[in-house]
């Protein structure tokens, strides 16, 4: 079972793009990640990750519509490729199989 290696941040970006279903572009992904994870993410990091993912063939992109806010510039809209989706799935499967093997599943750490 060989798959492309994904860093943790890349995985999140890839997931975010998948979640956003066609509306994913730099700023939107950044905001979404910030909202969901509470991390402070920098725009250039997201751009770098998106680009790497595209290089790896997990994302594809096309230019979208210009808006006034962007000074009449177009967005680059990202969507996941089949390979990208499969990779996410495989990651998920690997994790689940590990979780299943856990004899003593963690309980919320209330009494410590």
């Amino acid at each position, binding site marked *: 079972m060989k798959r492309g290696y994904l860093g943790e941040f890349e995985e999140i970006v890839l997931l975010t793009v998948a979640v956003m279903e066609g509306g994913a*572009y*730099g*700023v939107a992904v*950044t*905001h979404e990640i910030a909202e969901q994870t509470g991390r402070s993410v*920098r*725009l*250039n*990091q997201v*751009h*770098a990750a998106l*680009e790497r993912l595209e290089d790896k063939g997990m994302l594809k992109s096309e*230019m979208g519509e*210009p*808006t*006034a*806010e*962007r*000074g009449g*510039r*177009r*967005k*680059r809209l990202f969507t996941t490729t089949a390979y990208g989706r499969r990779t996410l799935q495989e990651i998920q499967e690997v994790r689940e199989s590990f979780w299943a093997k856990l004899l003593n599943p963690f309980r919320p750490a209330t009494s410590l």
Partner: protein
Amino acid sequence: MLAIGSACSLFIVNCSFKKMKPPRFADHLLKRFCSPDHLEEVLGDLHEEFAYQLRRGSEWRARGRYWWDVLGFVLSFALKRRSTEYSTTHLTNPMMIRNYFKIASRNLVKNRTYALINVTGLALGIGAALLIFALVRYHYAIDKHHLKYESIYRVTTQFVTPEGNFSITGVPYQLGKALKNDHPDIENLAMVDLYYDPIVAIPAASGPDRKFKDAHRMGAFVQPSYFKIFDYEWLAGGPTELTQPNTVVVSAENATKYFGSTQVIGKLIKINATLNARIVGVFKDYRDNTDFAYTIMASWASLPEFRGHPLNEDFDNIDSGTQCFVSLNNHFTQADWNRQMPAFVKKYKPHGVKDTRFPMQPLRDIHFSTDTGGVNQGLIWSLFAIGIFLLITASINFVNLATAQALNRSREVGVRKVLGSTRGQLFWQFIGETALLTLTSTGIALLLFQLGQQLVQEYLHGAFRFTFYFDPSVIGWLVLMVAGVIFLSGFYPALVLTGFKPALALAGRITSRQVGGFSVRRSLVVAQFAISQMLIVGMIVVANQLQYIQTKDLGFRQNAILTVRLPLLPKQDIGKMENFRHRVMAIPEVEKLSYSMSGPPQTGWISQTIIKFDNRPEPEKFTPQQKHVDAAYVDLYGLKLVAGRNLQPADTSREALVNETFVRQLGISDPAQVVGKILHSSRKLEIVGVVKDFNERDLRNGIGPLFMTTRATNYFIASLQLHNGNFERVIHQLEKEYSQVYPDSYFTAQFVDEQLQENYSQEQTMAKLVNFFAGIAVVIGCLGLYGLVLFMAAQKTKEIGVRKVLGASISNILWLFGKEFARLIIVAFAVATPVAWWVMTHWLQDFTYKIDIGPGIFGIALLATVVVAAVTVSFQSIKAALMNPVKSLRSE
């Protein structure tokens, strides 16, 4: 309805957007670094984010955030240029740079001679220009370190005479007091009194005093406010006590010399065997260049004791060493003074209303006022011009050789263009090559500068201190110069090279005609020749003029006359002078001896006075110089009497001799008419004779009115007429006699002709420098010429071969080269002559006695250029002409 609403909201967003735009510079920065295929989305995202942040918070925050993001992008790898099928390899790609270096070094090695010529020329040019800059800066930085530089003035005395104005640096003793009294608004005012060669004795508890002499230095008497005008740093004590008599401040160097330490407050010294003074302050040595480097400054209140009599109360006796400095502010300006000066003169010197003025001379002008002993600014600027010429000639060499070689590189340009180089890329490649050569040359130039600096320092006897390397303006100048040279020499060749059409270049169909540079190259060579010719004309004129003024008959004898300085005492001891005379006359080589106040060649010490003539009721409208001389003076210096007789020997003033100018100034044409008349100065004198005019100052000035009278107590030099013989032994003997008569003083002797040379030392130094640098410029020009001929010979190898085969003689072939350059020289001559004539005529205007610039000088310049060019050209062209045509034609 909905559509209208959304359009409206869009409009509003637009408005707010227009008002608050993201930082433009940040965008600009991004554009520089971001690859073009990413720019749109990145900028778009950034702007959107900016708008989002604006809605959420303050503009300030949004901007901060924007910058933060942009920097993130600039630093990140996200934007590294991706190679797509459209992108080009960037100019600064490491691979391309390696390629450029390789090609550049191959080219240099292949054309070693040209590279060597270029580097040598540029190194010489840049090194010399840097040295010139150092010199110019030295002159312009003098005394600039004083905080009040812009508001300091020296009050001088100006006499208005029919022949023109005549300035001296001194003012009457009482001017300071009067000025302060009448114009309390003057911020600071200080009187200064200068004397040469201070001699300091340190009283010893036992044994003889230790004595120190500051040769070629000046001592001064100053008022304490002097230190409010000029900035001094104090190592011990200070100027506050200088209000009292018998106090003195000394420089750290002198304190160390006298006592071996700078903690010398309270110690006693004796100045010129006259004045006992207590040291009240030690100031830090002069670090910056200054015209007022007095190493020992006593209080003004000590001056009467030093002079041996109360200071003159009148406004008629003016010594050039008695100077007045002021610093001004808004309350009282130079313009105010100019308005009020006539009233001031009227009040204090009513008889001088017409001819006396006391103008204020700004400190920044003092160093350059030739009439008060300053440096000729014209010479400094001509040096500067030569510096620029040097750079231009060196650059012209570069351009000439580079364009001449352009043909050889046309293929390279063609290939590069076919492979996708843009014109801009090629342009920067060639500029880069130029920069590489220029920087190499600059390295060598700095070494040359180091050498030259030592040479110049020797010329100027250490007067020229280099505080140079630590000076930001130097770095600035160097960078400017190097950038200028790179641009001048790289721009045109790069333009020519990048302009080649690849198809033609690759087909080898670019000929030297198409390089287009041919006429440009010609005009550049003409410019170079013209510059060389102008410089040669300048060199000849300067040399001739200096020769002329140094050998012109000054009207008095100069040969084998030795002057010995008597001690600078308030009153000479007549007994000691007689004693000295007897001892000196006993030396067999000494033929005659005369005592006088000063020799015919003046040394900055001019005593002028107002006179009344005969029974004219009003004082005369001119101020003659008075000289105290004994009866032997006229004979010893070979002055000629045009009327009357010589002075009778006497120790006091009773009779006077006047010069011809004096008579003319009186409005009398026949010299005989003044003989027997009375002249009233401080005393009543009978005019007994008129001497022919002689030059007492240098030939830059004319001859002023003069009268001479006896007054033994005012003699300061002894002039000795010597027979031929061993002068060294005589001087040695004199020194022995002198120290026996004047044990408190030091012996100084100088030949009159040497002293005269010294008058022109500044001119001579400058002339030497001008010659030196002009010589370098000519050498650089020759280098370029040599390179050009070298190239021509290489180009014409085939042509020469064919011509020789068809029967051309060697002289025919030589003429092939010669006619080209001969034509250029003639054109250059036509350009250079009027310019050089104009400039040099201008320069000569400073001199009262000057040479004519005749056609001969231009002839010599033309001849010199022709000879230099012929020598440079002939070597290569003869080589080319002698070559066996078989060799040159076989290789096809």
